[in-house]
């Protein structure tokens, strides 16, 4: 049997296994060890699965994973973001669609305090969504706002996806994180522009907040702005020592987790229940990630052992004889396609190692590609049928939001994100300017 055939068989049987609904790590791990046993025979084949565990142990940036997850849960469970929402509510409510715009602002600030999209989703759907619905906002638009906004969590630093990408592409996390800042803000700006335009055309979608709700003394209004200090402090406590090289990546993540914890305690929000939920869910989500990565690493090693990586390179560059840009675009498209039926974490750990070396070999900047990659991942997170954000939304949204609403809500935002993707592709400086500026200062 040729290696290409084995590789194809491995990939397709993994898909099939995934379709059965078994836990993702089990499906991938099973295919990995069976392929290893078939290829290596009884002797070496037994060890490939476990040696992935030893490899995973040495992937030190993954130590940030539980830290960022814990941060996210502390922020969302303790509801210390309530004040933030109130700030936007009062300050932005006077505009058409203002609450939706404020929600995007809220999402940007939450993104700066955690590394995944989960926290943004939880805060958005528990705090913002009910308020928006109560005020007569269009349910499809606001559902989309929250999903799109929370996806900024992995583009604005800190970002777990960029940590994983950094490990796979062997690029510095600091530069990748900084590269995500401008595109993240740009995308937030584009979401806002979309909301403004839609609400101008059709004011029913986002009615102006009743003056009685936002009439308050100026001093009171200014006081609300103080809520914005918290995210800035948490972000700074984590990022400043890191970017200056005083603390390492993993140390900074622990400082961030501690900062979020202390903030919740100081605000009197760290109840027994919040504590319990944060600690327990951190274990659950960390385990989910780690077991998938563990299985995917074994899968990747077998795939590599087959020479599948070289085969894919050969396919794109020699057999199809495409230009580098064509290959890049095809890869992005295939990502979105695969994202429709493949688990996101698995996609990251299995597919990225196939593509990233090729991108490097084609002469593209891997920091820039990391941002393209992350935006593409975000799109995949949001597109049905398989999307992490879709699942979360379904789990967290109030009952009047149907699955159909959720699916319908994301379409315009996905188009905005595709536009952002194209912009970053055409103008790489959007991503590379900030890291170049900070790290190459004279």
């Amino acid at each position, binding site marked *: 049997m040729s290696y290409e055939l084995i590789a194809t068989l491995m990939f397709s049987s993994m898909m099939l296994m995934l379709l059965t609904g078994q836990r993702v790590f089990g499906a991938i791990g099973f295919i990995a060890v069976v392929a290893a046993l078939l290829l290596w025979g009884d002797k070496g084949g037994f060890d490939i699965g476990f040696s992935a565990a030893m490899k995973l142990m040495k992937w030190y*940036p993954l130590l940030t994973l539980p830290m960022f997850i814990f941060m996210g849960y502390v922020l969302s469970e303790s509801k210390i973001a309530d004040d933030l929402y109130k700030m936007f509510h009062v300050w932005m409510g006077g505009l058409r669609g203002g609450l939706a715009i404020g929600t995007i602002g809220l999402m940007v600030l939450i993104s700066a305090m955690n590394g995944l999209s989960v926290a943004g989703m939880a805060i958005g759907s528990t705090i913002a969504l009910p308020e928006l619905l109560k005020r007569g906002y269009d349910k499809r638009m606001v559902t989309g706002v929250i999903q799109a906004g929370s996806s900024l969590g992995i583009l604005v630093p800190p970002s777990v996806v960029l940590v994983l990408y950094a490990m796979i592409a062997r690029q*510095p996390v600091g530069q990748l994180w900084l590269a995500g800042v401008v595109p993240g803000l740009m995308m937030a700006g584009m979401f806002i522009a979309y909301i403004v335009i839609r609400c101008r055309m059709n004011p029913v979608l986002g009615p102006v907040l009743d003056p009685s709700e936002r009439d308050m003394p100026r001093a009171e209004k200014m006081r609300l702005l103080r809520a914005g200090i918290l995210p800035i402090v948490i972000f700074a406590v984590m990022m400043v020592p890191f970017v200056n090289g005083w603390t390492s990546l993993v140390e900074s993540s622990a400082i961030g987790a501690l900062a979020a914890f202390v903030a919740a305690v100081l605000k009197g929000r760290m109840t027994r229940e919040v504590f319990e939920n944060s600690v327990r869910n951190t274990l659950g989500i960390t385990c989910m990630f780690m077991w998938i990565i563990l299985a995917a690493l074994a899968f990747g090693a077998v795939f*590599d*052992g087959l020479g599948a990586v070289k085969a894919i390179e050969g396919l794109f560059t020699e057999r199809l004889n495409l230009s580098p840009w064509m290959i890049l675009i095809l890869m992005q498209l295939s990502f979105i396609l695969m994202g429709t039926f493949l688990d996101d974490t698995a996609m990251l750990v299995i597919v990225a190692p196939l593509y990233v070396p090729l991108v490097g070999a084609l002469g593209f900047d891997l920091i820039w590609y990391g941002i393209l990659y992350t935006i593409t991942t975000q799109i995949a997170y949001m597109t049905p049928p398989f999307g992490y954000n879709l699942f979360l939304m379904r789990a967290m949204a109030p009952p009047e939001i149907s699955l159909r609403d959720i699916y319908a809500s994301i379409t315009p935002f996905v188009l905005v994100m595709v536009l952002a993707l194209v912009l970053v592709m055409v103008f790489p400086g959007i991503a590379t300017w900030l890291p170049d500026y900070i790290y190459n200062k004279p």
Partner: protein
Amino acid sequence: QSTIKWRMQTYAGAALAEHVIVPAVEMFNKIAGDRMQIELFFADQLVPTGELFQAMQRGTIDAVQSDDDSMASPTDVTVFGGYFPFASRYSLDVPVLFNQYGLNEIWDEEYSKVGVKHISAGAWDPCHFATKDPIRSLEDLKGKRIFTFPTAGRFMSQFGVVPVNLPWEDIEVAVQTGELDGIAWSGITEDYTVGWADVTNYFLTNNISGAWAGSFFANMERWNELPEDLQALFRVCCDQSHYYRQWWYWGGEADLRVNGPKMELTSIPDDEWATVEAAAQDFWEEIAAESETKRRVVDIIKKYNADMVKAGRPYRYT
């Protein structure tokens, strides 16, 4: 008759492997043709470097290029692989020690005991510090988190160096993310080749060993299954790899010190550095006391260095 396929993993990453192993493997494949093909994998690609030895012993991997120290071979000679402090001054010292002073025989004995074929040893580059901040005295070494070889790290920790062990491919990023302050793993040629010169600023001209010692190994059964002529071809290609490194590093070290634009050279004064050399003598004794085999190797290294001193110029100038 079907083609024999071997999987070989090197401890070098892709950029470095381009020089130190890829040409030899390509040569082997070209000559062996349909009879045998070697598939080469880079650092951590199939198995993590720490698991290399076990993977080779079990046949997950058929052959390995590594120093004994990095892959933590379970033998008594492991500490002498990689950089055994001040054991050699020039890269030619290593093949002489193995071929003329009897190290080959000891290595063969030790590896046969654990079911692995030791094929041949060769030299790489000297071991220098590449750091973000300048090192001009021993004091400057204190508290620096340095990626280095296990034994070299053990030795240098008495001068306040904090050795850190990470996967080879993660080093460049680890310097940037602040996990590391520098690297004591290679000479300046590798610093430039693998990208470390881009993330560090200073190169210390004093070295703690003049040449790395590392080897080619194979799973014993796989090796014995090979017909004699393919074994001979394999050895010839290993020697070709050793030879390539001899001139590539020797020329590269001088050229980049003189013409390299990315790193500033610094030195620790000779009399201060002499304390490190003296400490190495104690370290040798400490190691020799651990076992009979280690005593034999240390004695050979001592004898060799004494001979070189007596031989005078050009073998030794000081």
